[in-house]
């Protein structure tokens, strides 16, 4: 118990590691079993479309509840109170966009990637190239944030202090994840996400019940204790400690909220999950399950976050390695000692592994299916070629993410997740919505909204306080932050919608009437949609 005071590590690194290795062993067996049924492109990218809606819904929640939302939101609530909760609401409400506007229509019109849907009635090569560019950009930003976070987690949970030691662990995590993707394809990756989601949500339920028992199921007294222990009093029960301290900060927070709520339905690794079910109705059931589980989980984080504040205390959390990310693990240690901490630590590792595997398979599918098969080979290639290219790409992306994770370890790159959401909301979502619902939308419009949204986001971020000009910036010593907001969504999302409109109207090309008819009828009725493969 004295380890807490030393501020280096808590619990027993050996216990943490052993429980994690058990998880690895179980998932490896599952992945190898899944590999025996992975032969065709449809198996590799879409798990043969054989998962049920509920299974896919659990996998989606496993894919979506990244380390940032598990450790990050619990930590933000523990230290800043209400603002952490505020953040989680955007992540949940966002699913209504996917449910009402995107999931079913996308399932009916596409095969493997976002590019399938965007290029359906457009000129194939340019639009697929654009869709792949934006998919790779979003996935890479997201990937880098996950891998860099792994370093801090290692320091906390395995007591690996040196950068070299952490680099080895990051490389190990990366290699394992590539192995999952190579061997198991989408089927293996999905099972890893399902197992992880079940562990994560069970762990959160156990801890919440424990906290509820300690506070006699009285939310008010939990909040009271959290406020008393915070040193900030009732301020932790209201908005404003983390976001929006001044006028610019307030607008910045609104910008972030907009990107969160509109970004989810444009995240390529989430969109790709809708292809793993046999039809649109199962896609709908997937989203319903995902909303139920993600909603439940964010309600639990409220108890975990305030519980950590009340039982561990914000000062202890802030002083621990990994800072606010340590809130959930420290609460686990406080409640259930070494064993519960070991379990939660293993879940945290499993989270990184599952999310990164999902990102890698999405990025490699987009490169192999959109760029290699359709842009380079124009659809003329041997049957096995596409999957072979996808596997090679997975190795390359895995290697890049290991290097990126090692280089970015300890850097302040929290803005990368916000950037990934902003790009998804600006470059992808407007293009998807126009493609599905606007008859006149054409190739120029699609290219303008994808490239325009992507460029606006990246340029605004480069010239924002997230990159330079402030002590917390990536390059604190430099100063070129001419754009005041750290979150570009408020500007880039309307810009992308506008560009998609202008590109369409100004180009005066007429989109194919016949292709629009085919796309709309397919989207709404499911006629001719890809069926599940039977083995």
């Amino acid at each position: 118990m004295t380890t807490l005071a030393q501020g280096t590590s808590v619990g027993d690194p050996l216990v943490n590691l052993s429980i994690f290795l058990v998880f690895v062993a179980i998932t490896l067996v599952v992945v190898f079993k899944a590999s025996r049924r992975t032969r065709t492109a449809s198996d590799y990218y879409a798990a043969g479309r054989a998962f049920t809606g509920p299974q896919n819904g659990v996998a989606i929640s496993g894919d979506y509840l990244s380390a940032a939302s598990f450790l990050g939101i619990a930590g933000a609530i523990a230290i800043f109170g209400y603002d952490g909760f505020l953040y989680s609401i955007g992540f949940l409400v966002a699913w209504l966009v996917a449910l009402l506007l995107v999931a079913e229509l996308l399932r009916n019109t596409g095969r493997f990637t976002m590019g399938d849907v965007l290029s359906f009635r457009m000129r194939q090569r340019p639009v697929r190239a654009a869709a792949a560019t934006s998919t790779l950009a979003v996935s890479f930003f997201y990937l880098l944030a996950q891998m860099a976070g792994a370093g801090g987690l290692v320091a906390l949970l395995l007591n690996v202090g040196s950068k070299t030691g952490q680099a080895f662990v990051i490389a190990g995590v990366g290699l394992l994840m590539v192995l999952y993707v190579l061997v198991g394809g989408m089927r293996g990756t999905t099972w890893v996400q399902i197992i992880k989601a079940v562990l994560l949500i069970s762990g959160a339920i156990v801890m919440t019940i424990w906290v509820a028992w300690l506070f006699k199921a009285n939310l008010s007294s939990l909040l009271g204790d959290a406020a008393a222990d915070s040193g900030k009093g009732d301020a932790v029960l209201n908005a404003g400690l983390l976001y929006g301290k001044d006028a610019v900060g307030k607008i910045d927070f609104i910008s972030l909220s907009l990107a969160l709520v509109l970004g989810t339905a444009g995240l390529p690794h989430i969109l790709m999950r809708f292809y793993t079910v046999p039809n649109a109705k199962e896609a709908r059931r997937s989203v319903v399950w995902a909303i139920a589980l993600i909603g439940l989980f964010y309600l639990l984080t409220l108890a975990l976050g305030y519980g950590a504040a009340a039982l561990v205390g914000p000062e202890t959390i802030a002083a621990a390695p990994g800072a606010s990310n340590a809130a959930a693990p420290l609460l686990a240690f406080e409640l259930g000692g070494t064993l519960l901490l070991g379990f939660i630590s293993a879940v945290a590792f499993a989270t990184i592994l599952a999310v990164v595997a999902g990102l890698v398979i999405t990025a490699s599918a987009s490169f192999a299916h959109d760029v290699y098969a359709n842009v380079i080979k124009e659809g003329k290639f041997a049957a096995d070629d596409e999957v072979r290219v996808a596997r090679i790409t997975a190795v390359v992306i895995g290697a890049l993410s290991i290097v990126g994770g090692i280089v970015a370890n300890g850097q302040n790159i929290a803005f990368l997740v916000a950037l990934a959401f902003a790009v998804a909301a600006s470059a992808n979502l407007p293009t998807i919505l126009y493609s599905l619902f606007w008859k006149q939308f054409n190739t120029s419009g699609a290219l303008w909204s994808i490239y325009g949204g992507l460029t606006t986001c990246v340029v605004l971020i480069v010239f924002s306080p997230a990159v330079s000009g402030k002590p917390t910036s990536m390059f604190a010593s430099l100063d070129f932050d001419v754009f005041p907001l750290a979150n570009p969504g408020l500007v880039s999302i309307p810009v992308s919608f506008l560009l998609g409109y202008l590109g369409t109207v100004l180009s005066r090309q007429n989109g194919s009437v016949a292709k629009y008819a085919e796309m709309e009828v397919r989207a709404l009725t499911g006629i001719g949609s890809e069926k599940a493969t039977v083995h």
Partner: protein
Amino acid sequence: MSTLEQPRTGGGDPPSGADWEDIQRSAEFAELRRRLRSFVFPMTVAFLAWYMLYVLMATYARGFMGTKLFGNITVGLVFGLLQFVSTFLITWAYVRYANNRLDPLATQIRHRIEGGER
């Protein structure tokens, strides 16, 4: 636009180019599109407005959001929890609507096209 009747290939195969436009012009399909859009568009506007109202209140009306209703439960906490409630309710309402009003019509059109010849 070609109005030539394309020979239908047997059940299960998707129809050829001209047929897609025929289906799209049919009264049944127009009704399906109307039903889908008349639910999802207003609902999207509604939940985005409700969410943005919450975000704006949390940003600009903190005094009100910090008001304690009972014990340590604030207006802001209740407002936030209501966002969960509304998300669950809209999900439930859409699934009900889709099962009763969208799926039967879509299935009817699909069966007519894919298996109509039998």
